[in-house]
């Protein structure tokens, strides 16, 4: 590992699929690229995700997350990107002046452009206001995976899994890998969040999906001994030795919250234009930091696309950011949209569509400018609309 430079062309924060994909492309373009990762090993979330499917889009091969992460790292390094691990970015200064903390203490690096790719994480137990005691054995899927796949631990035998998102299926698979049998998947809503097809797998493995059910309380003094579940009028206790609290992803935006970069309260990520460019044009963002939450190949592609925009920006090929206009989508049931701004089109956009997240099922016609599009979707599905030419207010007309 080389030591940190004082100045460089591009600094990338975060070594998940988005950051690594961008590092490869920027390195290939001959730029001096430094990628900073706060963990001791690069790779982002796939690094501790022992199971498939990763890699089909990127390498035309299905592989586990750990192999996938290694291949992304190898590719970025082969293109000359420098990867620094155990380096935490602690402050984002105006114009690309970044402060980092490492074993060397504090340092600053001045970059011509900075790509933020810090990803997303799950919502832990506390903000969900689950009652009861606070014993060990309650964890997110991310923590479970690092214990199981990296440390080869077996944290519990018979946990319950809270949530029914894709990552909840991942939690069940991880439990199975640790020879633990989840007693149930618990979902507060009437329907699973992920497609029904995905919940087939846990059921085939013997884990029932309890819909319209909540965890009222967790019991145990030092370690989980059980949970109280409620469903309508019904309330019952289940003995278990772990609770995996899954999903409800939120961008890892801690860094943004103490800087001047504009943050979108709905995505909780930075406000960007179609080039992935933030309110300070020295900063760009890609991957799950932009919104909760997409799959690895999507983030990987976004990293590459925004890297291309950075290459244009450094060559003076992006429009003046002060000319950008807002994209609005303030309709009840629309949880978030991306990008939040449109700059005049000069080179190919990095975000090729307007992305929309719904808080409920919806069928609607969306009109903007001269264009219109139809959408019919459930929450937590990817919705893509054509990118407008300039600032617009998306008008939703619900159809039945």
């Amino acid at each position, binding site marked *: 590992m080389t030591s940190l430079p004082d100045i460089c062309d591009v600094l990338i924060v975060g070594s998940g699929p988005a950051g690594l994909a961008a590092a490869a492309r920027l390195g290939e373009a001959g730029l001096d690229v430094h990628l900073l990762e706060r963990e001791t090993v690069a790779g982002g979330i796939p690094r501790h995700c022992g199971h498939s499917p990763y890699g089909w889009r990127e390498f035309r091969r299905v592989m586990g997350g750990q192999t996938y992460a290694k291949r992304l790292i190898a590719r970025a390094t082969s293109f000359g990107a420098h990867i620094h691990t155990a380096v935490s970015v602690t402050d984002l200064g105006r114009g690309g002046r970044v402060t980092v903390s490492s*074993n060397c203490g504090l340092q600053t690096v001045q970059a011509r452009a900075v790509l933020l790719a810090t990803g997303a994480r799950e919502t832990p137990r506390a903000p969900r206001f689950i009652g009861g005691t606070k014993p*060990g054995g309650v964890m997110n899927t991310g923590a479970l995976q690092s214990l199981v796949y990296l440390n080869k631990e077996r944290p519990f035998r018979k946990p319950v899994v809270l949530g029914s998102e894709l990552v909840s299926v991942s939690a069940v698979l991880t439990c199975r890998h640790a020879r633990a049998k989840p007693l149930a998947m618990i979902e507060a809503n009437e329907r699973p969040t992920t497609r029904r097809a995905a919940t087939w797998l846990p059921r085939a493995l013997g884990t029932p999906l309890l819909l319209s059910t909540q965890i009222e309380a967790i019991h145990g003094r030092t370690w989980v001994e059980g949970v109280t579940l409620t469903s309508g009028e019904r309330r019952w206790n289940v003995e278990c030795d772990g609770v995996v609290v899954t999903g409800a992803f939120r961008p890892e935006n801690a860094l943004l919250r103490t800087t001047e970069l504009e943050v979108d309260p709905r995505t909780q990520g930075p406000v960007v234009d179609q080039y992935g460019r933030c309110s300070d044009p020295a900063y760009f963002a890609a991957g799950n930091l932009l919104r909760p939450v997409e799959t690895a190949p999507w983030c990987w592609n976004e990293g590459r696309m925004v890297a291309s925009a950075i290459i244009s920006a450094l060559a003076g090929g992006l429009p003046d950011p002060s000319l950008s206009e807002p994209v609005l989508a303030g309709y009840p049931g629309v949880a978030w949209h991306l990008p939040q701004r449109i700059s005049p089109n000069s080179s190919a956009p990095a975000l090729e569509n307007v992305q929309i997240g719904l808080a409920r099922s919806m069928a609607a016609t969306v009109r903007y400018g001269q264009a219109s599009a139809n959408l019919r979707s459930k929450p937590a599905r990817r919705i893509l609309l054509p990118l407008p030419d300039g600032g617009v207010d998306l008008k939703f007309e619900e159809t039945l």
Partner: protein
Amino acid sequence: MPESGQPISFDVTVIGAGVVGCAIARKYTLLGARVLLLEKAPDALDGASKANSAILHTGFDAPVGSIELSCIQEGYRQYEQIHAKLNLPLDRCGAMVLAWTAEQESRLPDLMEQARTNSVGDVALLSREQVLAREPELASTVRAGFIVPREALIDPWSAPHSYLSQALVNGATFRRNTEVLSGSFDGNAWMLETTTGPVHSTRVINAAGLYGDIVDQRLIGRSDFDIRPRKGQFVVFDKTAARLARHILLPVPTETTKGIVVCRTVWGNLLVGPTAEEQQDRINANLDSETLEMLREKATEILPALANEDVTTTYAGLRPACGDKEYHIRRHPENMITVGAIRSTGLSAALGIAEYIARLDETPWPPLPEPEWPAMPMLAEDQTRDWQTAGNGGILCHCERVTRREVEAAMSGPNAAQSLAGLKRRTRVTMGRCQGFYCSGALQEMTAKCLKPESTE
């Protein structure tokens, strides 16, 4: 543990390593006694002292003329004196008592009068405009208030840990996982039966917190108080919320409770709580979602901008309360002192309580001429932290910026953490916004050899 059947002999044995027991162990050690501190849990601060609001009180609202008041004020004075030497934070942010109704407003003068009677003379009445000028994020429905400039914030764990550490580096003995079961006094000294063997000691001090009455019964067969645990639940908001309040925001108190407080923590969060709920259980402080929701709403009524802030964590603690409103500090003829029912001000009063009982007692030993002053790791957000200095080993817990060097340090030395809970209280690992999503694996790897695994197996 004693190697042979022969128990070691101590001048003073303190039962219970809560904040009170730690302060007393320190006091007697500095006075020159051979001190033993016994704790039934795997680590210190596992009882009432594990969860509180972390306010260093001036005593402005304490019962007039009480022992509690004098201990709080002596505790405050001593903390001010020693905090720099022990590297402990002290944020003199001041408190504001706020009135939201006409009835509450009418009670402000009496409360200020009580403060003056309690020698807290620097309180000052504030009009609505003056309140809002000092706290612009407050809901504009506030009517008036008064300021208590010297109310302060401290670290509720590094303070007692420093008392314990100073006792240990100056010769005291700390025995954990050791519950006192019974004892006999032969007219000169005590023989205590514990879960790790017998202990011989000239004097005994019962600082067993939530078990104070039970330990009295076990040792002298009587107790003049009954502990009635009173639970307090809290909601903690993310660090970005801390900018919303400069002062400790207090309500006008009611008969039973000081009421729900909104204040920062020295770690840079914002907390709201506690509730006051009586219960039988002395061990479990259960959270319940309705109460937590109520606290969030309450906090948002006081500081509307909290509606956009994330919750980092929730917790609950148990006050060792009893029927009345006074500490139960008793000197028994059996060479024993009980320090009971240190209900809701023990963090502030601990050093004062230690002073008070040392004066009750004869202390025939020569005081330590030049005691050592161990410096505690500084965890307060506004001070220089380890992650900002070289050689820290890198950050392990990213949300709270806890370094590998800090974690290693907390697992070594005479007061080394022996449980994950103890490690958290010493370093704050996994106590930030992600609650372990990122660092659980790395932490487990680092601690596997040193900490007792917490699992059912």
